[in-house]
């Protein structure tokens, strides 16, 4: 719904706009969808001029259909699959994080979402040598833990330092600031402000529900609108800038069945294309025998219900090995 302004296209002058507005045609959609002969008669404008203006506006504002084969070729050349650094998690995600898509990690408090995010950040920055932007809204980011993870991957201090330098951290605690950060990222990429080793390839948002939950519920619809704004920004960043976006979400208890389900409701459930649920099974908070299970609850490529076991130790998210299974954590 773009408003008609003078100079929007050649031939659209201020007097024309005044006359059109007087007949309640204020936006591009109104002009393009109205019957031009009638408009020419009512506003005393030349029919030819109106047709020319309409043609230019259509060319400028309409979307172009793309051939399926062309789309496939484009996706093949622009999508990258980024390994998460953990073989079992990669198996769950069909060999890794896909750029152009939003992946969601959800789980109860203490189930390991922040640990998986930190692990992904370090493995992208160190193994794949790509830039990462980590947006932290819960305060759970610990640079010393990142250093620990980097130290288990390489003993060389310079490489550790480089790996940490490629991870940018933004600490935002409300939704407007988060939108600011995402907008700034988009501007910096579109203006081609490159940092030392290239554009950001992975965007981690931990967590998205911490900033949206205070706005949802009650009788206000504002919260949903802002949530969808955020969703649109994330998806646009993923698709247009070829990034892999990872978000974390909380869980709430379902009122009727008593099971845990991801927070933010049904509207948010359509935003990520892949959803992974992290759980710790057979554990009480007095004992030390926790098994951390990651299960796939939504995926465009794999069957849902696949489960893998993760081991969150001092080395990050490793796969379960027979030697390690004896240690209780």
């Amino acid at each position, binding site marked *: 719904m773009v408003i008609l302004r003078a100079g929007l296209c050649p031939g659209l002058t201020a007097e024309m706009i005044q006359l059109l507005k007087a007949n309640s045609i204020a936006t591009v959609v109104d002009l393009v969808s109205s019957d031009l002969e009638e408009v020419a008669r009512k506003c005393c404008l030349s029919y030819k001029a109106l047709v020319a203006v309409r043609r230019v506006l259509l060319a400028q504002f309409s979307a172009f259909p793309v051939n399926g084969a062309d789309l496939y070729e484009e996706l093949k050349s622009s999508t990258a699959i980024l390994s998460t650094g953990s073989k079992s998690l990669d198996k769950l995600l069909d060999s890794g994080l896909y750029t152009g898509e939003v992946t969601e990690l959800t789980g109860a408090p203490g189930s390991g979402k922040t640990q998986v995010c930190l692990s992904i950040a370090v493995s992208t920055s160190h193994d794949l040598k790509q830039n990462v932007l980590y947006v932290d809204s819960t305060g759970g980011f610990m*640079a010393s833990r990142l250093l620990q993870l980097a130290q288990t991957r390489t003993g060389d201090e310079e490489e550790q330092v480089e790996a940490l330098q490629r991870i940018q951290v933004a600490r935002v605690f409300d939704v407007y600031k988060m939108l600011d950060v995402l907008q700034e990222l988009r501007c910096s990429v579109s203006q081609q402000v490159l940092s030392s080793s290239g554009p950001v390839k992975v965007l981690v948002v931990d967590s998205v*529900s911490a900033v949206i939950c*205070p706005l949802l519920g009650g009788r206000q619809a504002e919260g949903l609108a802002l949530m969808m704004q955020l969703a649109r920004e994330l998806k646009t960043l993923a698709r247009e800038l070829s990034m892999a976006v990872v978000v974390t979400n909380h869980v709430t208890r379902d009122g009727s069945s008593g099971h845990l389900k991801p927070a933010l409701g049904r509207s948010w459930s359509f935003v990520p294309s892949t959803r992974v649920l992290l759980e710790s099974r057979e554990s009480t908070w007095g004992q030390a025998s926790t098994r951390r299970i990651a299960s796939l609850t939504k995926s465009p490529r794999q069957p849902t219900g696949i489960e893998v076991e993760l081991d969150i130790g001092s080395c990050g998210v490793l796969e379960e090995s027979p030697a390690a299974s004896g240690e209780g954590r």
Partner: protein
Amino acid sequence: MQRDVGSFPLAPGLRAKLIGAGFQTAQELLEIGPCELSKEIGISKEEALETLQIVRRECHSNATKTADDPEAVGKCTALELLAQEQAQGFIITFCSALDDILGGGVQLTKITEICGAPGVGKTQLCMQLAVDVQIPECFGGLAGEAVFIDTEGSFMVDRVVDIATACVQHCQLIAETHQEEDFQKSLETFSLESILSHIYYFRCHDYTELLAQVYLLPDFLSEHSKVRLVIVDGIAFPFRHDFEDLSLRTRLLNGLAQQLISIANAHKLAVVLTNQMTTRIGQSQSMLVPALGESWGHAATIRLIFHWDNKQRLATLYKSPSQKESTIPFHITPHGFRDVHPPPPSQTPAEVEINPRKRPRIEGDKQ
């Protein structure tokens, strides 16, 4: 600047009017003046001017932000954060086992939540921390001040006097063995009166007062910049009774958590909250879980659960970004929060628990 109008912090009614008039992106708003805007969407000229100022400010700050501009959103690399974290201190708890499992003590810029059944020692730890944050830097402390927000009325000044006296004596012992000048100098300022005068106490009787207090805290903190610890003793109490609308409660709690973490981050202080326990009835058994629901569990960065094991008090680290889960025993002595020392065969330290208000767990037990 192709930023959507919906992403600016404007009032909802105003936003609805702007979108209804056909404004989609910030670019369109930047092109017109306040008089035209007020005429087009039917608001007063002052409102139009304000709206345009908000939009311009956000857009210009985006355009002129460089990588070195820290105050805008606070972006920095992980390396810089690492340097900051390593330079930060911890608030020690005088119980070395607890300090170990926390990774050095209570961390700054994070929210630590202590949950436990009644009488297990949550308020004792809070009072201990309020004293420990004031320990001078040469003894390994932070030389900060503390804010204590009390909702249950469990703050006992005489107990704080006991804890503070023990702490000052401990520091004096250290100073005597080391015999250095700055130790003596800092001891002059570290006395019972100064400790008590640097604990700022607020009493909140219901959730509205608590919310108001937390939202007014940034102003208070900008005047008292040495505050390094904010304690909210009893965050569950005002929210657990007298609330019909549970979704409102979730919303308020989440907003409160975000406000607290942003204060902790902006002023580099630690926030400690205490929570109650509630029973969850499962399929075969019932367990004690922290109160306030599932969504509150995500609010705290570090969660400690205090519980009993027969007669021994235990602390379990249940959630932490950098330490693994573990359990340690602790004791509460007349001097405050302390470690458990295995009793040597020759002397038996008398561990008397002072619990003036709550029923003593063990009836007159002396080891």
